[in-house]
């Protein structure tokens, strides 16, 4: 399953870091962050609960970029 979320982030490099962090989160099969469109597209693994996984994704992203925001 694929879902996309609106995000807020200040710099392109931070967006890259968020992408890396999201990719490593359990339950996430693949993730892509578009800095220009301010969008994060997340592909979940089968059986993963998107809402729960996204909480972890946000936590992981906050670690690399304290100011970021994901609108769920």
């Amino acid at each position, binding site marked *: 399953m694929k879902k*996309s979320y609106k995000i807020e982030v*200040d*710099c*392109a*490099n931070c967006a*890259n*870091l968020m992408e890396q962090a999201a990719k490593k989160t359990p339950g996430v099969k693949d993730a*892509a*962050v*578009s*800095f*220009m*469109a*301010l*969008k994060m*597209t997340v592909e979940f693994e089968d059986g993963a609960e998107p809402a729960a996984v996204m909480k972890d994704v946000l936590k992981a992203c906050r*670690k*690399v970029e*304290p*100011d970021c925001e994901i609108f769920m």
Partner: protein
Amino acid sequence: MNKKQKKVLYRILIAAALLVLANVLPLPFPASCILYAVSYLTIGWDILRKAALGIANRQVFDENFLMAVATLGAIALAVADRSGDFNEAVAVMLFYQIGELFQSIAVGKSRRSIASLMDIRPDCANLETDGGIVETDPEEVPVGSVIVVQPGERIPIDGTVIEGSSGIDTAALTGESVPRDVTVGDEVISGCINLSGVLRVRTTREFGESTVSKILELVENSSSRKSRSENFISKFARIYTPAVCCSALALALLPPLARLMLGMAPAFGTWAYRALTFLVISCPCALVISIPLSFFAGLGGASREGILIKGSNYLETLSKVKTVVFDKTGTITKGVFEVSGVHHHEGKDEELIEYAAHAECASSHPISQSLRRHYGKEPDRSRVRDIEEISGHGVTATVDNVSVAAGNDKLMRRLGVEYIPCHSAGTVIHVALDGKYAGHILISDVEKENICEALKALREAGVEKTVMLTGDVESAAKQVAEHVGVDEYHSELLPGDKVEKVEAMLRELGSGKLAFVGDGINDAPVLSRADIGIAMGALGSDAAIEAADVVLMDDNPMKIARAIKISRKCLRIVYENIVFAIAVKLGCLLLGALGFAGMWAAIFADVGVMVLAVLNAMRALKTR
């Protein structure tokens, strides 16, 4: 400016005012220190916080870290020197924040101007219900309901016109500025703007399946497929910052140690200052911000002209295309049959067409349709008597008391009329009037008017070879190929053979890339096999949008060259920015290391390069 940016602006103003006060007021030593400290913390607290969080989360090397170390280092030096001059630390932080603010405004602005190009999302649909017309969210309109589109409104959902007629502006989808006329029974596509009359439309799809949603999805996801250049930058940033930090450390320690060994004064202070300057210069923001921005602008500029490119990686491939392979039908030719000539007729051509069109007036065969289209008027049925259709042969009829026979060779033989065979490729309709041969009408798939120019434009855009593939017989293929001027053609191919041909060409190809252009019908395997698949005339065809990497919304062949030109320009800008930013950085690093450039110069270089790179990136939006 948004709230966050305004907050930063106020902080900048307050910190700047405090800094001025600290310099102007004749305060004794400790008091001025407090003023400096307040100013420094006002402007830099978030940077320090982020740097600390970064260290705590083991994400040490980023811009915040660089700035924190550089400014704290400058303060430490000022304390060590007992100079009490904290101007430098505060000013560097101040300029860094001004640069960041400027960058965030510039990027936000560019993002909005690009996004507005693709703003084809309809806000609401006027749904007809028992209780009158209700404004509804397009997503909630079921298939088969009736919506009303007022002049000036965007058509929200694909459907069929059931009442009214109007011109619709398809520019947002195709880049074509001439409005298209629609009337009852015509299909209308969502995303177009209704220009003149009120239309009642019966929806044929849900909003999510409508053209406008498909296009938006495609455009919005396009920047997530990253190009090699973008990947290069993110890798670059990952090794760059640690490398710079190590170099700075080396710069601070090695020269003084060397001087010690040579018996000179170590001058730790000077070298520490140079190392800090080095750190300030090294922020890589110009690169990491301008490259994605260039690609985004390129994709945006292309989509404004009705060229949808599915990702930056395809934009990059497109710029390297050296060979363009065409599937003949629908790309070089129109894919519709038209009268292309009247031969061996002694009178006027129109006369023969008129007889044939009348004789065929009752038939719904595609050939008779194209005859009628060419005739231009609706045949007058009262002039026609005794129509007899002979299946597989043609028709005979009496038109204005002249007996007309129109059909193929077999019909002529059956009627015992001597006919002249045709040399050209296409479908031939022989016409006999009162039992005497009167010539034949040639109906064929005609070439697009501007195909020759389009091939020329391709060559000008740097394409070295054009190839035509077709299922037609050799003679027909040769005629078309020679006329439009492709370099190579292959005829009598089955759909499977086309894949093989393209694969063979891919093997021969060196470093250049191969693009395959098709109309999206029956050629999905080839579209996906080529380095880059371009589908033409895709408006309303889901299969084509699905299979291709580049989608041309209308069927104008000139757009292929446009797409390549746009991609070349975009990539040139990307390389310009990479080279420019790295060159300026390296130059400044060298000057900083040798002590020619101070921290002030460093911060100006950083902001300046970033601004120029962003402005340069925005050029990708417009290609002449």
